[in-house]
C-alpha cells in the first residue's frame, strides 16, 4: 500500500507532472511572484495546501452532488479554501489571493483526480504530489530564468516566450521518463 502511494506521488512529481504533462498551472508556475527561494517555497506550499483541501472536499461533494454541478462546487470550495487559508495564517501580505484563485493547477488537479475515479487516499496523495510537482517546476523555471536573463535574448522572445521555450526543454526531459 505504502509502495503504491509512493509510486503515485513520485509519478505526480516526475513522469506525470501536472504542470508539464497536463499543463495545469503553467501560467502561474512560469512566472513566480518573487525571485527569492523563500517566496517560491511559500507560494508552492500555499498551492499544495489549497489543492489538497479542494480535492478532499470536492471528493466528498462528488458523492452527493450530480456531476454537472461539480465545476461550480469545486470553484466555490477553492474560494472558501483560500479565504480560510488567509484567515488561519493571519498573514495576508504573503498570500496573494488572486494568484491562488486564478491558478488552474488547483481546480484542474481537483477535477482531474475526481475524473480518474481514484479512491479517497489516492486522491489525497495525488493532490499532494501535484502540489509538490508544481513547487519543483516553479523552482526549476526560476533557476533557469535567472541563468537565461544573464544571456542575450532576442527582444521578441524576452519575458514570457523564452520562459515557455525553457519549459519546452524541461517538458522534453520529463517526457523521456
Amino acid at each position, binding site marked *: 500500500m505504502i509502495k503504491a502511494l509512493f509510486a503515485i506521488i513520485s509519478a505526480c512529481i516526475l513522469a506525470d507532472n501536472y504542470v508539464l504533462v497536463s499543463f*495545469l498551472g503553467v501560467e*502561474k508556475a512560469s512566472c513566480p511572484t518573487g525571485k527569492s527561494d523563500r517566496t517560491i517555497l511559500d507560494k508552492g506550499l500555499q498551492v499544495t495546501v489549497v489543492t489538497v483541501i479542494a480535492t478532499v472536499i470536492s471528493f466528498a461533494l462528488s458523492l452527493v452532488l450530480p456531476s454537472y454541478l461539480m465545476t461550480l462546487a469545486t470553484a*466555490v470550495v477553492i474560494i472558501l479554501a483560500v479565504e480560510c487559508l488567509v484567515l488561519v495564517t493571519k498573514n495576508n501580505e504573503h498570500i496573494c489571493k488572486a494568484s491562488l484563485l*486564478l491558478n*488552474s493547477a488547483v481546480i484542474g488537479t481537483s*477535477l482531474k483526480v475526481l475524473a480518474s475515479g481514484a479512491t479517497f487516499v489516492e486522491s489525497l496523495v495525488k493532490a499532494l504530489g501535484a502540489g509538490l510537482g508544481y513547487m519543483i517546476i516553479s523552482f526549476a523555471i526560476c533557476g533557469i530564468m535567472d541563468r537565461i536573463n544573464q544571456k542575450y535574448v532576442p527582444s521578441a522572445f*524576452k519575458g514570457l*516566450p523564452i520562459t515557455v521555450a525553457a519549459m*519546452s526543454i524541461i517538458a522534453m526531459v520529463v*517526457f523521456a521518463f
Partner: protein
Amino acid sequence: MNKNGKYTTLLFLGACPALAATASVQASLAIAIATVAVLVISGLLLAVLRLLCKQESLTVTLITTAFASSLVQMLMAAFLPKYYAMLGIYVAVCAMNAMIAEAAPSVKKTVTTAVLYAALVIIMGMIREVLGAGTLMSVEVPFFSTHYVNVFAKAPGAFLVFSILLALANACEKEVN
C-alpha cells in the same frame, strides 16, 4: 515579465487550455469555441451585474465564470458531444482561468481577447497537427505525412509552438504600439 505587451500577457494567461487541446485542428476548434463562449457569457453576465452593483470583486467574477463554464459544459455535452469528449477537464478549467477573469469585466477587452485567443489556438492546432501528425483536418499533407515529428503532438512540442507564437504576438504588438 512586464517586458511583454498587454495582449501577449493576456493570451499567456489562457495557456493551460491552449496547450492542452491543440494537438489537432478539431480539438483546437473545440477549445476555441468553449473558451470564447465562456468569455462572452461571463462578460455579458458581469455587465448585467455591474448595472446592479458598482463594486467589483474577484469572487463574484470567479463564480460568474464558473457558472458560465458549467453552462458551456452542459451545452457542449448536449449539442457537440464529439467535441466535448476531446476536451476532458479543460472546459471546466476555464472556470478559474486568469485570462477570462482579466478580460471579462471589460467589453472591449472581451471581444479583442476572444478573437485573438481563437486565432492563436486555431493556428497552433494547424501547426501542431501538420508537424506532429502530417495531416490537416485528418487529410494527409504531402511531404509532412512522411516526415512528421511526433514530439510536436506531445507536451514539449506544444510549449515550443506556443513560445514561437507568443514571440510573434509580442513582436506584432510592439510594432503596433
